[in-house]
């Protein structure tokens, strides 16, 4: 099969492939309108009519069609069209050959590298990041030293002292207040709890209150209060209690 004589029936062109190429190269036919895929199809159809593959024809066809595609591609991209528009067939062929040559060489260079890599298969060496490479610089945003000072100052403040006072509390004995209330009630029949205890510490007041409850329990006094949180009134009980009835207070509070 002679590729050049391949009869084509395309929208834009009808006749032998040979003529199509000539017209295209002489710019008498707009290549942009030629359906290259159609040419390929018609070639393959013709090829299929034969029993055996015509390698020679295939090779030639490939070269011609790739040349055609190259020209068409360039025609479609106006930037590079100026470069080729004036080209004679000889020059176009040369341009194509140059491109093919370039790729061909690189392909062979790649093959050489593949072979080389295979030869070096049994070469083991230590790998690591290049130690002499400059370390990438870590850039920080601009900082204000005053901001840092403020932050540090907040941390430098001495923390509030934890109170350990409760561990040292000592409770005065309830008996002491029992005696105190009794002696006062001997002189006066009515007492005001708050007034009597004014100036005492909270702990003393608490123990004094316990003494009060103790006295009430023993019926020595009567306690009254007008309203919640109102002053507590202490009144000597009606019946005199003999000293023999006195008991040692059961309420005792010890300091922890």
């Amino acid at each position: 099969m002679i590729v050049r004589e391949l009869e084509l029936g395309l929208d834009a062109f009808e006749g032998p492939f040979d003529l199509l190429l000539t017209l295209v190269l002489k710019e008498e036919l707009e290549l942009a309108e030629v359906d290259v895929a159609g040419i390929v199809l018609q070639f393959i159809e013709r090829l299929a009519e034969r029993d055996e593959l015509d390698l020679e024809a295939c090779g030639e066809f490939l070269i011609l069609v790739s040349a055609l595609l190259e020209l068409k591609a360039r025609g479609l991209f106006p930037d590079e069209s100026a470069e080729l528009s004036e080209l004679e067939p000889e020059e176009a062929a040369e341009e194509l050959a140059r491109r093919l040559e370039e790729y061909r060489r690189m392909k062979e260079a790649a093959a050489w590298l593949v072979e080389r890599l295979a030869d070096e298969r049994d070469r083991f060496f230590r790998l690591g990041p290049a130690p002499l490479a400059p370390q990438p610089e870590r850039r920080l945003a601009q900082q204000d030293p005053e901001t840092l000072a403020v932050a540090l100052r907040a941390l430098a403040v001495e923390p509030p002292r934890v109170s350990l006072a409760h561990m040292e509390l000592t409770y005065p004995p309830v008996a002491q207040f029992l005696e105190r209330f009794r002696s006062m009630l001997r002189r006066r029949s009515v007492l005001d709890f708050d007034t009597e205890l004014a100036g005492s510490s909270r702990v003393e007041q608490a123990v004094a209150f316990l003494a009060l409850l103790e006295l009430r329990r023993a019926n020595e006094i009567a306690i009254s209060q007008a309203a919640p949180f109102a002053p507590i009134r202490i009144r000597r009980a009606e019946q005199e209690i003999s000293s023999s009835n006195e008991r040692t207070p059961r309420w005792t509070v010890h300091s922890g």
Partner: protein
Amino acid sequence: MDRPLRLVAANPLDQLARTLEALLVVSTAPLTVEDLCAATEEDPERVETALGLLTERFGEGRSGIVLERVAGGWALRASRDAAEACGRLFERPVQRNLSQAAMETLAIVAYLGPCTRPAIARIRGVAADSAVAGLVERGLIAESGRDHGIGGAVRYRTTPLFERVFGLESMSQLPRLDDLGDDVDEIRERLHAVAEQRTA
């Protein structure tokens, strides 16, 4: 006591050779003669002589480690006899599974670099993005500036690791481009023959 002492107090060149040996063991990349001079504070001539001593001592077949001249410097590697054992213990991710596209891209960068992705694509006829990215990741090629002009494309060149992996003393060991592509002339003749028929 005299004899062993004399042996230990080796001549200064042997002392230098030992220091070089130590430097080469510590380094993960080939060291140039300049690197070695700087570290030992010796002059190049003496360093070269000492390296000569070491090359003999650490030759293929003599020792488990071999001193080789590679990627423009000197480096230690495992002897080829030990390759099988090394292979059972270590992977070689840089070399493994390099595709045809990667090899062609590598060849283009090696010969024409620094070159851009569009330049690679123009020669190979297909986009080179993924091949380039893969080679960068393996460390075989690296960025090397940009094309001139505004928005110039990034250019790539091969790295010292490329030379090392392919066992090249230097890039000049690559075959000359002119020696490649024997059948190019044949293609050219055929193309011209076709063109002549067109003009006829």
